C-alpha cells in the first residue's frame, strides 16, 4: 500500500471515529441513567484518543500520540474513577425522572445544533481548502460543543450536568487536534491536568451539596434571584 492510499485509509477511519463521536454525543443527551452517562462519557474520551492516534499518523507528529495517551489516561480512566469514589453509590443508581425538556425534543434540538455546527464550520474550512482531517474534526467538534452545552442545560442532576460540560471540553479538543495539530504539547497536556483539578473541585463541591442540602439535584437550586429577594427582613 503506498502512502497516499494509507493516508486515505487513515482519514476514512478518522471520519468513522468522528461519526461515532457525534452519535455518542447524541446518546449523552438522551440517556436517563446516571451510570450510563458515565459510560458514554468514557466512550467519548476513548474516541477522542483514537482520533488523536489516527491524526498523529496522518500529520506524522508524535505529540498527538502523547496527547491521546494522556487523554485516555485522565478522561477515560482517572475521571470516571474519581467521580465514583467521591460520590455516594446512591447518586449513580438514580434515574433522572425530571428533565427540563423531554427526550425527543432534546434530540430534535441536538439535531438542529449539529446542523448549525456544520453550517458555521464551512466558511472556516474554506480557508484551508476544506480537505483533510480538519474537514471532519472541526464540524463534529463544533456540533459536539453545542450538544454538550445542551446536555448541561437540560440536566438537573449534578453528575450528568457536569459530564455534559466535560463532553464540551472533549469536543473542543476533537476540533482542536484537527485544526491545530502543531499546538505545543505542554499546552495540551496542561489542559488535561487542569480538567483533572476541576473534577477534584467539583466532586468536593457536589459532596458538600449532598451533605448540606441532601440532594444532588442541583437544577432544583433556584433561590438566588432578584424576585425572591423580597423575603421579609425578619
Amino acid at each position, binding site marked *: 500500500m503506498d502512502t497516499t492510499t494509507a493516508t486515505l485509509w487513515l482519514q476514512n477511519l478518522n471520519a468513522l471515529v468522528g461519526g461515532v463521536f457525534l452519535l455518542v454525543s447524541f446518546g449523552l443527551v438522551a440517556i436517563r441513567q446516571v451510570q450510563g452517562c458515565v459510560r458514554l462519557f468514557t466512550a467519548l474520551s476513548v474516541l477522542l484518543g483514537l482520533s488523536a492516534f489516527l491524526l498523529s499518523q496522518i500529520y506524522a507528529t508524535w505529540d498527538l500520540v502523547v496527547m491521546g495517551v494522556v487523554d485516555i489516561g485522565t478522561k477515560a480512566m482517572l475521571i470516571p474513577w474519581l467521580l465514583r469514589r467521591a460520590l455516594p453509590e446512591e447518586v449513580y443508581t438514580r434515574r433522572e425522572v425530571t428533565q427540563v425538556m423531554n427526550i425527543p425534543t432534546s434530540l430534535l434540538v441536538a439535531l438542529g445544533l449539529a446542523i448549525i455546527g456544520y453550517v458555521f464550520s464551512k466558511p472556516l474550512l474554506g480557508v484551508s481548502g476544506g480537505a483533510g482531517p480538519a474537514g471532519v474534526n472541526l464540524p463534529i467538534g463544533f456540533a459536539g460543543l453545542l450538544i454538550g*452545552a445542551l446536555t448541561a442545560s437540560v440536566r438537573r442532576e449534578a453528575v450528568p450536568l457536569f459530564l455534559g460540560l466535560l463532553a464540551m471540553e472533549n469536543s473542543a479538543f476533537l476540533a482542536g487536534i484537527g485544526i491545530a495539530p502543531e499546538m505545543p504539547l505542554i499546552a495540551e497536556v496542561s489542559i488535561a491536568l487542569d480538567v483533572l483539578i476541576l473534577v477534584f473541585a467539583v466532586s468536593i463541591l457536589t459532596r458538600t451539596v449532598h451533605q448540606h442540602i441532601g440532594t444532588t439535584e442541583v437544577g432544583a437550586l433556584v433561590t438566588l434571584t432578584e424576585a425572591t429577594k423580597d423575603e421579609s427582613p425578619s
Partner: protein
Amino acid sequence: MSIILIPALPLAAVVLSLLPLGRRFAPAVTLLAALGSLVLTVGNALTISRGREVVAIPGWVQLDGFAALLLLLVTFLSVTAALFSWGYIDAHQREPRRIRYYYAHFNLFTFALALVPVLFQPALVWIAIEFTSVFSVLLVAFDNTHTALEAAWKYIALMFMGAAIALLGFFVLFWAQEQAGGGHYSWDGLRAVAQQMPPVLVIAAFLLILVGLGVKVGFVPLHTWLPDAHSQAPAPVCALLSGIKTTNSLYVILRLVPLLPAGSGWAIQSIGLLAAGVAAFLLLQVKDYKRLFAYSTVEHMGIIFVAAGLGGGVAGQYASLLQIVSHSVTKSFCFFAAGAVLFVSGTREIASVRGLLRRAPAAGTALLLGGLAIGGAPPFAVFLSEFSIFRNGLAQGQYVGIGLLGLFITIAFFGILLHVNRMLFGSALPRVAEQSSERHDHLPRTCQLALLVAAVPVVVLGVYQPVWLHGLISVAATTLAPLSAP
C-alpha cells in the same frame, strides 16, 4: 527571573498555610507572600515603565506593559484582601482547620490570578484563567450555606461552559496564525502576523473567546451568575472576584481586539453599552448591597469595553486602561466596605440597615466613600478615568456611544447613591440589627487597616498620577492600539 517568583510566592504560601502552627500563622504567611509579590511586581513595573521588557522565558513567561499593569493590580489587591481576611475570617470561623482551608484556597486563587499576566502564550493563559475559576469555587462556597452552595454550582458550571467554548477559540486562533505563516504562538507572535491572518478565522476565534470568556467577565446576557457568586462569597474574596478576576478575563479579550479587521469598533462599543445599560437598570432594584456592587461590576466591565471600542489610537486605549485601574482599586474597596457593613450589621439586606453613619462610623464612612467613588463622583479615581473616556469619545466624534454611556453612568450613579443613602442615614432599626447573631460590635484592626490602605489609590489617583504609573499605562496602551495598516 523575578517574574517567576511573583506567582511562586503565593504557591509556596499554599503549602505553608496548611501547617497547623496556630491561628495567626496562615494569615501571616499569606500576607507576607502577597507583600513579597507586590514588591517584586513594583520593581518590574518600574523597569517596564521606562520602555524595557522583562523576559524570563522568551515567548512563554514575559511581561509587557499591559501584563505588568494587570499584575500590579493583582498583587496590590492580594495584599489588601489578605489584610482584610485576617480579622474578618478570624471573627467568623472558630475552627482552626477551616481557617487553614480558607487560606490555602485564598493563596491558590491569588497564585492563579498572578499567573494570567505572567504567561505570554495564549493556550497557557487559558489554563491560568481556568485555574482562577477552579481555585475560587470552593471560596465562593466557603460558608456552606444553601445559598452559597447554589451560587458556587452556578458559578462553576457556567465558568466551565465558557472555558470549553473559549478553548475552541484558542485553537482556531492558533490555526489562524499557522495560516499566516506561523511563528511562535504568543501575544507578540499574533500581533506580528495580524495583517496576514485570514479575517474569517480571526473573527471566529474572537467570537468564540468573547462568548467563552465573556461569561467570566459578566457581559450581558452571560452575567446571571455574577451577582450570586459575588454576593455569597466572603467579603475579601468578593473584592478579588469583582476587582480583578473579571478584569483578568477582560484582559485576554482586550488583547485580541487589535487583531480584528479595521472598523470593528462599533461592535465592541455595542457589547459594552449593552452590559453597562442593562446593569445600570438592574442596579436600581436590588435588595442586597453586595449584589448592588456586583451589578456595578457588570456596568464597569461594559464601560471599559466601550472605551476600548471608541478608537483614538494610543490615547484612546490609555483612557480604557485608566478605567481598568480605577475600577479595580475602587471596586475592591467597595467590597471591603460592604464586608465591614456586614460585619457590624449582620445582614446583607439594604432595607435592614439604617443610620449606619451614627451606629458604626468607620463602616459607614467607608461605604459612603465607596459609593461616591464607584459612582464616579469627583475627585476620585473613577471620575478621572470616566472623564478621560468622554474626552476621547468626543474627540473621535462618537457622539451616540458617548451619549448613551453618559446616560447609563448617570443612572447607575443615582442607583448606587439611592441605596447607599438609605443605609447611611436615618435612625437605626434596632429590632433586626440586635437580633442577628452574625453581628459584631467593633471592626477588627486589620480590617480597618485594609480599608485605609485600599482607600489610598481610590483617593490619590483622582488628583495625582505618579510619573511611573503614567509611563506604565502609556507603554501598555501601545500594546492595545490598533495595528497600523500595511
